[in-house]
């Protein structure tokens, strides 16, 4: 049971959080302008690195806010956490 440091609430147990996959995968500006393959890449394909990985997490059973975390996939250690780019508040 890892501790994850929510940028707003501080360290809480991992079961309070839900995982949101790779961070910084923006919704395409013009989906209709994409080829089927480009669209499929957006919907179905994500990176799977061995090492630091920028991910989205949500503090579902806490403040319910999403944040970005860099986690080392080899050790599960959280390297850093921070608010989402463009979110209106900072902790």
């Amino acid at each position, binding site marked *: 049971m890892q501790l994850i440091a929510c940028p707003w609430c501080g360290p809480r147990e991992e079961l309070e959080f839900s995982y*949101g996959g790779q961070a910084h995968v923006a*919704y395409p500006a013009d989906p*209709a302008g994409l080829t089927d393959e480009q*669209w499929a890449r957006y*919907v179905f394909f994500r990176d799977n690195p061995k090492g630091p990985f920028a991910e989205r997490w949500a503090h579902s059973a806490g403040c319910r806010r999403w944040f970005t975390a860099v986690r080392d996939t080899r050790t599960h250690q959280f390297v850093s956490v921070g608010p989402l780019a463009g979110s209106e508040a900072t902790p």
Partner: protein
Amino acid sequence: MSRIEGYGRVDRSRTVTVTVDGTEYTGHPGDTLASVLLAHDARPLGTSVKFGRPRGIGAAWVEDPTGLVQIEEPFPEPMVLASTVEITDGLVARGVNGQGRLSDVADVARYDHRHVHCDVLVVGAGPAGLTAARRAARDGLDVVLVDDRPEPGGTLTGTETIDGRPSREFVADVVAELAADPRVTHLQRTTAFGHYDDGLVLALERRERGASRQRVHRIRAARVVIAAGAIERPVVFEDDDRPGVMLASAARDFLHRHGVLAGREVVVFTSDDAAYSAAVDLHDAGAAVRVLDARARVPEVWARRCAERGIEVSADTQVHGTLGDDRVTAALVGAERREVPCDLLLVSGGWNPTVHLFTHVGGRLGWDPALGAFRPAAPLPGVEVVGAADGTLDLAGCLRQAGGADAPHAEEEHGEPTMVLWRTAGEPARQFVDLQRDATVADIARAVGAGMRSVEHVKRYTTIGTAHDQGKTSGVVASGITAELLGRPIEDLGTTTFRPPYTPVAFAALAGRARGDLYDPVRTTAIHDRHVAAGAEFEDVGQWKRARHYPQPGEDMTAAVLRECAAVRTGVGILDGSTLGKIDVRGPDAAVLLDRLYTNMMSSLKVGRVRYGVMCGNDGMVFDDGTVLRLADDRFLVTTTTGNAAPVLDWMEEWLQTEWPDLRVRLTSVTEQLSIFAVAGPRSRDVVGAVFADLDVGNDAFGFMSWQDTALDGVPVRLARISFSGELAFEVAVSSWYAPALWDRLIEAGRPYGITPYGTETMHVLRAEKGYPIIGQDTDGTVSPHDLGLGWAVSRKKPDFLGRRSFARPQNQDLLRKQLVSLLPVDAATRLPEGSQIVHLAEDGRLPAPPVPMLGHVTSSYHSAALARPFALALVKGGRERIGEVVGVPVGGELVAAQIGDTVLVDPEGARRDG
């Protein structure tokens, strides 16, 4: 009787009586079952699992591989170690012959959990642990100290000297200092059994008093100090499993803790120094002792002490076997197998640091040749290992390592290094390695012969280390013997992985209070008691209890549902729909957000109107559906399916926060705040009109898919013309505080019309007759709105919404996609089981030759009162093109013919919805 005057810390002023295998024994408070049995020279406890060989007490604590008992009274408990059972009056136990058995009596004891946070957790209250805890406490830290034994002090017998005083006085002083410190929690009888990420340790407390029998402490510590000591390891020889063969330290433990001399004629076989203290102590307590040291050099200081006492010491001497029937009568010494009579054969092959908690969190071990054992090889952040657990076996070193600047002092002892000796010469098939599993050196040889090269494989092949003790004494020995047989150094092989729990933990303790009604939260609606009073049968929908149907005397579910369906289609029924998810969507950009989330256009919805909406994932597959009420320009009320209430809110939040943080919208769950009742049927207008007399409920004033606010005795109520049955219907919503009163008024007003409460089963039938899909029942995550015939709910005007781009993928254009259709069994009698496969029939109406092509499956199936026959909904490949076709459905070995039809079977022209 082997109780020795002047020894032990049991309370001899009081007597405790226990019964083992039908015989009564007396002991004293402080005794264990094992010490009582040894005090009475009792017979062996049981027999081994495979060969039925006699089994007795092999050690004094949790490492014992043999002394298993079944507790019958005061509480049935299978397979526990006699060495760990503290006796109480009336305790009844049996030895275990072969396997234990589960109790057939329910466990009525209470178990609970406690969350603890601290700066430092110290595991083990031996000299190192006590010293470490005292040091942390003096630094002003919050300290938790746990120890699995009944009393603190670890293996200190009282014969040692610390800071110039008897060691037990040192223990008493430290314990008193810790007890006086409000920042210290000190728990004995508490086993730290698992160590997890970021300083989380689970510890099981065996409680003597309090409401619960056992308590799991969930300790989150900034720093974990592991001072768990070390476990003596045996040397393997022929017939080393006979009762009377025991770890040397155990005999010393029984003597100093319990005042019990485990034998009168003692042979000590050792390859290290520690066993000498057992030899000397047992001699001083009255036993005849001789020492056989496998090493060529006997340690000087011990040779002198033995000589002073007349204890014969033989160097370079090994035990090769034993004699005896029920218990050992002689050791067979040397290659010539010289008989040396004894009733107790003590063995010591060195010490294995208790590194379990260190390895649980990924700590790596290394072989220490000087120590002759595996010990922590590299530090872990936030974890400290001190004392014998780190391989520091001498008392002075333990105190120094744990104590820092004000470490207590003990005299240094200088001896000879441990000789690593895994086994002596003998017949491998009778050299027992894991005494609980009856696994021998021959089994390891067989594993190696079969090609096993890893100790993990050898463990699984031989089962060594898989019993209740998890190889506490046998694991490393098995590694050593495997290494010898492979001709490789043991450091190349390592040990098997130690996993939690360190000692067995009852499931009841892990469950704590989360059993029965408290296992999972149960959600009931505000009028649950009305359903109970009406005789409802309930079904679980997520955590909700929903009324499924309301059987009257003599009715089964089929009969009740047919009656309820008929009531709604011909009169009026009422359904508690309060479990529907409800989300309040508020803000200037609320309409923009909903336009992006729903397939249909929501921004064009007028205040006062209601629209059915479908949500898809990015893959274009249906995720949820429900109604959307526009309450104001900047405010909507969204409903979701019962099971998807939380996921839909999460989904909306995710997009709002992560992708469109510029939208000014707030989302609030109001599922529990708002109760909703559906009043449905041709007479529903009469009922609603009677309750809300000042509201015009006529079709012109209150049209389909519109809502109106009113009040009842000053309580706000919202009504909406929404129908999930095809009948004229009103959804009546009120704050859940007033739900019971509103329900009662509706029932009362409906009495003249025979208003009938109906449950979820009836709701399912009514909606299926109209072809309305239930997301999650008729869909499975691979179904698009078009597959469901909901293309009309997909906007062509909006440039984009979630899922839209996927509709253009070629896979979505495939004419052979599975589509929702109805199925009518041709015999008009068979109810097709949900989940049944649908197959293409051959020309002759029989099953075609294999492989039989599958066309789809039945998703919903019911008896219909309106149609007076069974019917089903199904997902069928290219289903809409096949309307009219007859297909086959295998049911219990028979092939049932069924005709594919349009989904709307009742009132296809929609004439009934306005009454």
